[in-house]
């Protein structure tokens, strides 16, 4: 899409680690909504669908009143038929449309794995590139208040494994807006997984449009002792851990890959080259998850940099319990990151 190519080029020119002289602060939800709003205004081929996108809650606010602005043919509610509706989005995209299909939990994507994995991710390759599938699937992770096993899954660990998809997990309002615009403009199927707890954040967000290129991570904090690759909401926990650790003289570097597919391997490897130590902090289950891939990648490509065992901070490998006492054990956070850092630093270099 032309408008996005321009946006990305512009971004390349202007961006540093963060937009330093940007002063406008808005919430994450506003940032997401702005991205959708801009895209809908810019391009007639874009439409937004999903259970409740046009209801009074506006999907946590991120789609609020967009139906009123763009009409119910471009922002519309859907039946609970997640698999077919994913296919319907695919079909519309093959005819030149750019659907954004929104879900209020990733858990429901499990009903659409057939269309996501067997179809969307393969359609371009299977037909020798004669056609492509420019769809965005957006889902918001739930956490807490006893949401329990079927309403709190993150699932990026599954999508990480599937070729032919982009996988995007913005951790800041700035990134959310820019990455959603990139996702909508991209000609491939893109999964965006956001975290409900990030919706509380606010941050600098330019009023106008901008697009953040995929595969480009950012250093959220510069440090020299340990590299923490933090995914999505874990960036927040990692930043807090870093504060605590810095009081004890430990300086962690925090890398936010922002997109997991494609993954900015370079930024991770460079950091590990400097620190010699790697922790991956992810919102999902540990085994076979995003942390596994990043650990394996570094064990392959950055082995000589490593001075200590890699560590993964992640959720326990169990279904999410409802009770808060158990939730507290289930979810990893600041405390786990802090203790992991200390442990990893206690290993003697050899």
């Amino acid at each position, binding site marked *: 899409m032309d408008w996005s190519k321009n946006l990305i080029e512009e971004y390349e020119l202007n961006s540093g680690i963060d937009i330093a002289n940007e002063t406008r602060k808005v919430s994450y939800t506003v940032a997401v909504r702005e991205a959708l709003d801009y895209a809908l205004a810019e391009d007639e081929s874009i439409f937004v669908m999903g259970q409740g996108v046009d209801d009074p809650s506006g999907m946590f606010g991120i789609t609020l009143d967009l139906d009123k602005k763009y009409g119910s043919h471009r922002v519309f509610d859907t039946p609970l038929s997640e698999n077919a509706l994913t296919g319907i989005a695919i079909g519309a995209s093959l005819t030149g449309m750019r659907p954004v299909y929104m879900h209020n939990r990733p858990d429901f994507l499990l009903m659409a794995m057939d269309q996501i994995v067997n179809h969307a991710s393969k359609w371009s390759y299977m037909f020798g590139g004669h056609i492509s599938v420019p769809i965005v699937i957006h889902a918001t992770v739930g956490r807490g*208040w006893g949401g329990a096993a079927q309403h709190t899954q993150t699932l990026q660990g599954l999508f990480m494994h599937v070729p032919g998809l982009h996988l995007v997990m913005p951790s800041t309002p700035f990134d959310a807006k820019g990455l959603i615009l990139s996702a909508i403009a991209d000609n491939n199927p893109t999964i965006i997984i956001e975290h409900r707890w990030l919706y509380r954040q606010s941050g600098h967000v330019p009023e106008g449009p901008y697009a953040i290129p995929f595969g480009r991570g950012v250093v959220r904090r510069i440090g020299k002792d340990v590299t923490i690759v933090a995914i999505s909401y874990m960036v927040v926990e990692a930043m807090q851990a870093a504060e605590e650790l810095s009081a004890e003289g430990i300086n962690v570097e925090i890398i936010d890959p922002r997109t997991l597919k494609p993954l900015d391997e370079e930024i991770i490897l460079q950091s590990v080259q400097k620190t010699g130590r790697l922790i991956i902090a992810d919102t999902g289950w540990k085994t076979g998850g995003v942390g596994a891939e990043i650990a394996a990648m570094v064990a392959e490509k950055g082995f000589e940099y490593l001075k200590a065992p890699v560590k993964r901070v992640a959720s326990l490998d169990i279904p999410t319990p409802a009770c808060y006492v*158990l939730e507290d054990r289930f979810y990893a956070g600041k405390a786990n990151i802090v203790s992991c850092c200390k442990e990893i630093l206690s290993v003697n270099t050899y």
Partner: protein
Amino acid sequence: MTDSVEFESSMMSVPDKTLLGLYWTMLRIRKVQLKIAEHYHEDEMHTPVHLCIGQEAIAAGVCANLRTEDYVFSNHRGHGHYLAKGGDLNALIAELHNKEKGCSRGRGGSMHLIDTSVGLLGSSSIVGGGVPIATGAALGAVLRKSDQVSVAFLGDAATEEGIVFESISFAVLKQLPVIFVCENNFYAVYTPLNKRQSHDDIYRHFEGLSIPCFRVDGNNVLETYSIAQEAIERARSGDGPSFLECRTYRMTDHHGGESGVEVGYRTQAEVDHWSAKCPVECYERFLIEKRVLSFEDVKVVGDQIDSEIESAFEYARSSPLPDGDGVLRYVMAE
């Protein structure tokens, strides 16, 4: 739909004991729901509650026909199904309070109720997700040559999930003893049925699969009871599954204890229209008119239930939370 509930025609064959039993079950479900609503804002129940106020007649009418060993599978809006099937009240309230003595040991919360001792083998909060499982329990019954039947409770939105079509189709193919009880309350969260389905006669969707399908006034406990009775008898005697669309309305919001009118997705007029058809009040009036129930009875039964509920809340509040160290327990069975 008329504005009042007409019980007369379904009453004839029902013995007084059953008439009263239905009343007790509905009133108890209602009172439990109201008590939860009353306390929910105190934030002692960390669990997303989906109340079934207004829909009590369906759980009561259907389950009154079931034996203890028959199976029931519920969904996110499951308190009524749990109680009507005979689930333990203390364990329900404890579960809502996230306690170890909860029916799911605090692991499940409001959306995941179970009481294996009375055939309630679980509740899925994935819309439609419990329906094939209920169908499979019926297959299990057939393979074990038992005459148990299985009931799947589902919402109107669940019928939009292909898995429900698949389940019904298989149940018909194998003539399984399963009854699909769809509680059509015309909403999925804030989305009205007409935005999701092409017409609101849900029972018609599956007629083409050659399953007996019925439209039921889900606010009329006697009609529900008698149509369910026939369906359950057919199932038990090997004549296969049935599909019941029970039309009803939830008086509270999708989640929590408010009415939801203030949110703006439904009108006060609509809520009032259905209030007039309250399944509990209308039926109570009817029983009193018919002299099956006296004002005195109403008070006695109500008080009994109130004190039972009171003690369930006390039980729940005073019972211990799970031990954090047990977090890994129960993932895998021995």
